[in-house]
C-alpha cells in the first residue's frame, strides 16, 4: 500500500523554537507539497518541490522554509515558531498528471 508518512500526528512547541516537520513518501513521486489547513480557510499551499533540491514558494511561504535532499523526503521548517503558526499541516505527493496522495497530517500547537 502506497504511503505518505508524516513523522508526528501532534506536536507542541514553544514560541521561538525551530520546528521540523518531516514527510516521507514511498511512491517515487517527483512532486511533494506542504499545506496548512485552518477552519474556514481551506488548504493553503506553503511550499512545493518538483525535484530533489528544488523548491517553489506557494501562497503563504513567510515564516517557513523547506528542504528536499532526497527524493522521498520533504521537510518543512519553521525557523522561529510563532503562535499564528498553530495549525494542521498536510504533506502530499504526486506524479505529473494525477491527484495527490496525502499524509495523515500534523497538528502543531505553538504556545
Amino acid at each position: 500500500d502506497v504511503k505518505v508518512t508524516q513523522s508526528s500526528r501532534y506536536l507542541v512547541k514553544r514560541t521561538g523554537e525551530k520546528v521540523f516537520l518531516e514527510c516521507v513518501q514511498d511512491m517515487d513521486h517527483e512532486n511533494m507539497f506542504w499545506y496548512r489547513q485552518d477552519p474556514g480557510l481551506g488548504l493553503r499551499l506553503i511550499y512545493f518541490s518538483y525535484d530533489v533540491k528544488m523548491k517553489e514558494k506557494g501562497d503563504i511561504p513567510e515564516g517557513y522554509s523547506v528542504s528536499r535532499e532526497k527524493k522521498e523526503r520533504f521537510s518543512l521548517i519553521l525557523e522561529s515558531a510563532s503562535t499564528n503558526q498553530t495549525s494542521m499541516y498536510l504533506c502530499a505527493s504526486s506524479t505529473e498528471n494525477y491527484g495527490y496522495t496525502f499524509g495523515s497530517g500534523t497538528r502543531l500547537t505553538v504556545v
Partner: protein
Amino acid sequence: AQTVTQSQPEMSVQEAETVTLSCTYDTSESDYYLFWYKQPPSRQMILVIRQEAYKQQNATENRFSVNFQKAAKSFSLKISDSQLGDAAMYFCAYRRRYSGNTPLVFGKGTRLSVIA
C-alpha cells in the same frame, strides 16, 4: 489564475438519502483534471473521484458520481444512499493537464453531516 469555489460551507443529509455537493471553477484552459477529496474526522485526505475534462462521460465510483458541466464550469458530487461513514469535509480541486508540477487548486471545503 484558476479558482475553485464551494458555495456550501456545511450540508447535512439523512442516512440512506442522496446529497449533492456543489463546486464551480474558473479557468481559461480546455484540458484539465477535477477531483473530489474526502477528509474524515481521522484527517487522512483521500481521493474520492477524478474527472478528466476531455471526457464527456461523468465519472462514477460506487455510490459517488459527478455531474460535470464543462461549459458552465461546474463539477458537483452526488452521494447516493448516504452512510454514517460519509460524514467528512469534502474538497473540490482542479489541476491543469500537462501542467508538470503545478499544484492542485482547492476549494475551501464543504462539511457534510449524516443524520442517523
